[in-house]
């Protein structure tokens, strides 16, 4: 398996050869930042197109077909449109918070984005509490949504923000517990550590029943945390017109939109990391020839493939189910998912301590 650490090390050595340490670090940070922003926008464009096509396919339609071949340029046209639109500021809004809110949402998703294990040695932030960091920064997004809802000075946005607060805070517990179950199995919080631990088999296979339960809990909770159908209550187009971002226009609305698609990629990426081995190829112990062939597929392809597959599952869910109601949603979390998650965590701990997993 090719280790991208060799490339990064080579760049680092090259820079250190001609400049002092501090300058080299600064330049490296700048390169990483630019790469991050670039990946962020490229993934967003791919995802918007991806979701439209999948949605069209599920709904017996073709999806975008007019702009460019197979509608490939439709997203660019839309981005251009959104960039040229006027930023409308309303009367009697809290101007500062109103402007600030979309940035909170985007920054939160960028921070999570930076943690993803792109490939062998390709990772922007890799700290020993990586998963904990993801859980922590994901909560910043709620703040942005609450601010947007509050500062717009509109009843619809306020209801949307209230729903969002209740929903995201609740479901964070379940995602956290699902993550903890995996941490329990991996024995580390470091993202590279978790990937490394799945060298001989992905957790979904090696972790027995508790891993599968955790996987299902994670899918439901991540969907809810992401405000995607059937949990798109904060937006709830048919009830609240557009929920918390009703009053936003132009690129400010674009940021919410962007963050939504990127969050879809991020939760898929985290699902891939926690349960499907991150960038780790499919290894079956005992079949060395098969494992070697699998190793020839580059690690970023593995990671992106898994993330795209998970996203497809999320889209499938979104376009098939009707929306749940606020009371049903809270009931699902507090009465079913959370107790089940806690029970599952204990089960996993028992599995690990008695060595019952593969």
């Amino acid at each position, binding site marked *: 398996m090719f280790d991208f650490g060799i490339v990064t090390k080579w760049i680092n050595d090259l820079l250190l050869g001609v400049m002092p340490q501090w300058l080299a670090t600064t330049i490296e940070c700048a390169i990483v930042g630019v790469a991050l922003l670039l990946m962020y926008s490229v993934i967003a464009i791919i995802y918007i197109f991806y979701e439209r096509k999948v*949605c069209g396919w*599920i*709904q*017996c*339609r073709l999806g975008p077909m007019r702009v460019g071949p197979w509608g490939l340029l439709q997203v660019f046209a839309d981005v251009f449109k959104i960039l040229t639109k006027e930023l409308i500021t309303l009367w009697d809004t809290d101007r500062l918070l109103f402007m600030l809110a979309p940035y909170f949402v985007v920054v939160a998703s960028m921070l999570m984005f930076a943690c993803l294990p792109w490939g062998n040695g390709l990772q922007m932030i890799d700290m020993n509490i990586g998963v904990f960091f993801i859980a922590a920064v994901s909560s910043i997004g709620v703040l942005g949504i609450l601010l947007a809802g509050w500062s717009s000075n509109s*009843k*619809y946005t306020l*209801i949307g923000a209230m*729903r969002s607060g209740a929903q995201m805070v609740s479901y964070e517990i379940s995602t956290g517990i699902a993550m903890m179950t995996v941490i329990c199995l991996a024995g580390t919080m470091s993202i590279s550590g978790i990937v490394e631990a799945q060298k001989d088999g992905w957790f979904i296979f090696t972790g027995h029943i508790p891993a599968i339960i955790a996987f299902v809990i994670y899918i439901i909770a991540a969907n809810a945390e992401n405000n995607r*159908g*059937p949990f*798109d*209550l904060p937006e*709830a*187009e*048919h*009830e*609240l*017109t557009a929920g918390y971002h009703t009053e936003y226009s132009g690129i400010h609305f674009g940021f919410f939109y962007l963050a939504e698609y990127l969050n879809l990629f991020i939760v898929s990426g985290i699902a891939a990391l926690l349960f499907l081995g991150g960038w780790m190829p499919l290894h079956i112990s005992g079949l060395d020839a098969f494992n070697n062939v699998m190793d020839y597929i580059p690690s970023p392809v593995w990671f992106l493939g898994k993330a795209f597959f998970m996203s497809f599952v999320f889209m499938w869910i979104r*376009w*098939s*189910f*009707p*929306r*749940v*109601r*606020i*009371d*049903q949603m809270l009931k699902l979390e507090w009465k079913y998912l959370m107790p089940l998650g806690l029970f599952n965590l204990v089960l996993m701990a028992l599995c690990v301590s008695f060595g019952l997993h593969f």
Partner: protein
Amino acid sequence: MANIQEKISALCPSATFDESGELLLVNVPDENWHALAKALKEELHFDLLNAVAGVDWKESLGCMYYLTNTETQEMIHVKVATTDRETPRLHTVSDVWAVANYQEREVYDFFGIEFINHPDMRRFFLRNDWVGYPLRKDYDANPELNPLRLEAEENEDDTYALVEDEKGEIKRVDKKVFGPDEYVINVGPQHPSTHGVMRYRAAIDGEVVKKVDVVSGYIHRGIEKLCEDLTYPSMLLYTERMDYMGAHMNRHATCLCIEKALGIEVPHRAEVIRMMMDELMRLSSHLLSYGCLTMDQGATTAFFYGFRERELIYDIFDKTCGARMSMSYDTIGGVVRDVDPEFVNDVRKACDAIEKAIPEYHKLFSGNVIALGRMKDVGTLSLEDAKNYAITGPSGRASGFHCDVRKTQPYSLYNEVEFDEVVYENGDSFDRYMVRMKEMEQSIKILRQCCDMMDKEGHQGEFCAKVPKIIKLPAGHWYQQVEASRGAFGVYLESDGEGKPFQHPYRIHFQSPCFNLVGVVDLTCKDNLIADLITITASLDYVIPDIDR
């Protein structure tokens, strides 16, 4: 009939009767009307108020109340009038039949008749600052009196009631619709789920809806007023612009009413074609309703499934009528032209396709656990309320109300075909939805029988009776109802028998089923969540242009 007449004269000696028309007409002085109304409902079981049509008879102003006994299906109509044109006042019956609440507001809006003891005397369609009452014969249509106003009316929260005390003195009591402490959100007029320009003002407590106020009239076109300036054939055009998802039925009802007045017999072939068109329309309407109900609950995919099959029906309309939406196909005496040669085949194919698709719909939505959770026991309407609010059509039948006009008062050839009236019991949103799904199967059944009838008729035949070039109705009034997609659609037609060289209707009133449906929004949404408001209004399945005629 004579029996009822005796009973009514025993209840109210001052009532006079007229049996010359199609139905028994009871003339009642206003001071006895309220007591008689109560007795009619409680003792003679006239529990369904079909229609209230305000009429300006020049020397007097008043209302026609059409009543039905839902057990025996007997119909009578009551005329209540006042000669005071300056401050016309009648007693309300909104406490007897709840549906009269909105009906009387409509009459107040157009004729200026104030109803004593009515709880909420606001205009229903027009703005509060409108000058004059448009359907009165002495209405001044000068545009300077009612210019195009560009500002919102200021006092939309103000209303009043005329309260009569025990001594018979009438006092005006000013009221507010919402209290100062209520948190009111505005749903509409521009909203994704009101299915048009409907507006609700909902007082909420957290997510719970406490009260809903219906504000209507955003696309009110005054069709009844417009029709008064048109001849009968050209008037038909407007009937399709009310409930566009029941265009054929609306036109059918109006044609039937005029044919009844003229005594024209419609050829058998035309009857079959009309019936087929009605049922195709019903299918298309229920498919749309499936799509909208599912989409309002967030299941966007199901919406496209409904639209996929609906396209087949529109193709059939396109081939035979030449238009997809407003078909203008029925005419006085029959239909405009014969059907397309492939019509019967196309209908058979569409029936097969839809029959195959219905299980798919159920698979996608009906059995879904989220959908069940959203619709079961949400917005329950009891049988008593359904009758009280005159909720007919699929929404009424979901509450166990046997109100299918095709069965109760068969018209066309509906008594010659075999089909079941779909009736459910619970009256919640899920039942309203299921009634529509089951009714589609019944419509297919009717269509197949009609196709066989058409086979016997052959490729060509007489599709329109001989009607005079210039249509003139004798003096009198008629009422005809048909089962439209959303309930009983009634046409009240009054002719003065005059007019040269062309005759216009003296008064035409369309009793649309959707108008009654919005009447129960407040009742069913109370103490439900905001999300339920959307589910309930979607399951009631009204069409806004039908409310705002």
